[in-house]
């Protein structure tokens, strides 16, 4: 590591202050899930209880929303995994006319504000008179999940030693065998990390989903409805904690899988 002088206290305070700013709200969510107060957001909670977890457990609408979000995330991740890996294989080393344009196209769905991608998909769905369905949600999600898989796969492919591929070919393997026995094993954990992040991204997506879901309720849409018109605050508090727990796991696993590559990007 580089040798730098010890940080002065103003810098240290500022740095850890920002970390606190990023995390205090998340800690508060966990506290509120145990609050006995059910009419307001009063702080500090007058008493603590675990009863709301039981109440939330029995809510059919919450389960239905979780199920739909899970299925959508699974299908979107599947599509993104195929398309993102193919794009990464094509763009990792090759240089050809239009390469920049292709990588820009992959990034566009997350670079443009979600509301634009959303309304674009909405007007295409409307113009072609396609009814809203499970698949209209998946099409939107898969489109912005591709870049996540792509980023992870491309970082790993660039680290892959090209001599390995040539050695495999020299030893008589054909292209498909080289792919099966040399490239895919090296790529595996990066693809798993990309898939986990794509899953987390889809599971949490709300902006594009509001345009492509019609009357269907994914978990984020359920949450958004509660945010705008709170009906039962304690249940919302509990669901918020569940969402945090469900998204932290894939993120941390993805981080540990790709630590040696470049930092995880969106």
């Amino acid at each position, binding site marked *: 590591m580089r040798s730098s002088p010890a940080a002065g206290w103003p810098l240290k305070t500022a740095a850890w202050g920002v970390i606190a*700013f990023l995390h205090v709200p998340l800690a508060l969510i966990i506290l509120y899930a145990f609050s006995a107060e059910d009419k307001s*957001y009063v702080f500090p909670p007058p008493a603590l209880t675990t009863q709301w977890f039981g109440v939330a457990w029995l809510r059919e609408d919450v389960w239905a929303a979780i199920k739909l979000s899970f299925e959508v995330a699974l299908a979107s991740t599947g599509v993104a995994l195929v398309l993102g890996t*193919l794009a990464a294989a*094509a763009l990792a080393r090759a240089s050809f006319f239009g390469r920049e344009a292709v990588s820009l196209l992959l990034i566009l769905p997350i670079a443009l504000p979600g*509301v634009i991608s959303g309304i*674009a998909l909405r007007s*295409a769905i409307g113009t072609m008179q396609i009814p809203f369905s499970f698949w209209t949600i998946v099409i939107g999600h898969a489109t912005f999940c591709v870049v996540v898989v792509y980023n992870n796969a491309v970082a790993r492919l660039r680290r892959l030693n090209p001599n390995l591929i040539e050695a495999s070919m020299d030893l008589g393997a054909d292209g498909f065998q080289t792919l099966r026995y040399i490239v895919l094993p090296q790529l595996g954990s990066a693809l798993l990390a990309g898939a986990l992040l794509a899953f987390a991204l889809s599971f949490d997506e*709300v902006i594009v989903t509001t345009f492509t879901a019609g009357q269907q309720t994914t978990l984020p849409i359920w949450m958004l409805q509660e*945010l705008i018109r709170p009906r039962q605050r304690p249940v919302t508090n509990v669901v918020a904690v569940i*969402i945090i727990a469900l998204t932290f796991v894939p993120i941390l696993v993805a981080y540990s899988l790709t630590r040696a590559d470049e930092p995880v990007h969106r």
Partner: protein
Amino acid sequence: MNTALALPPPPAQGLRRRVSDLLYTRRGLLLLALLAPPLLWFGVVYLGSLLALLANAFFGLDDYTGQVVREFTLQNFRDLADPANLDVVRRSVTMSVLVTLACVALGFPLAYYMARHASGAQKAVLYIAVMLPLWSSYLVRLYAWKLLLAKEGAISWLAQQTHLGWLLDAVLALPAIGGPSLSFSAIGTFVVFVYMWLPFMILPIQASIERIPQSYIEASGDLGANPALTFRRVILPLSMPGIAAGSIFTFSLTLGDYIIPQVIGDSTLYIGQVVFKQQGVAGNVPFAAAFSLVPIVVIGLYLRLAKKLGAFDAL
């Protein structure tokens, strides 16, 4: 003959081998095979949708039936120039600029600390501490701020406990940015935007500071610069690409968001909300389409500026 016997049998013959050889020797064909599925998906689904959006911007709405009339008209763009709409655009752009500046001010010290002072386990902990909020649920984090900013919430409580209630009241009494409580004020909207997009600013700045060679900093010191001068003349200019890259995220995410100002804020509208309302409640997809071209144009201009600052080398 003998040497041939010593070799292992060739693995696969026939069609598979021929396809494999063809792809290996003709790289263009391999590239085409790899690129065709993603290009088809993005070309048809995404670009197709964006084109449908663009086309809709030139359609009109039948006043009586409320149906989209597919005839070319520029009426939507004339409506855009309405003072109320220009006001929305001005407010959104101002908010995006302020949020970006605040994210730089808050993000830079942490990014600098991560890049130049933290090492080993501490660095990993800090990295995860920045990445977790970035990836964790947008709505849950927004909900957390609803709890924090509510009139009976944690911030009011803290102000009371520290006898700073008068300060909070004074801030809320400010014209234009104040309100009945923090969750119904423009200050609240601003704070939540900063919170939401801050990690997107920290990570690129940190990456760009890490790339500054230690020798540059030593050279600056050897040539007589004190640490403050080294910071101003060496570190800051070289971290500019990172700041520019982060600002693309903070700027464009703020400009297009319609959920945050709907949940936290006074009832004034931002671009995203107008687009959403026009297509949803009003059912006026053509006007919503025309309005959504505004952030595309603004972001396009912003990207040109960011490119000049080297943002794309830091992404």
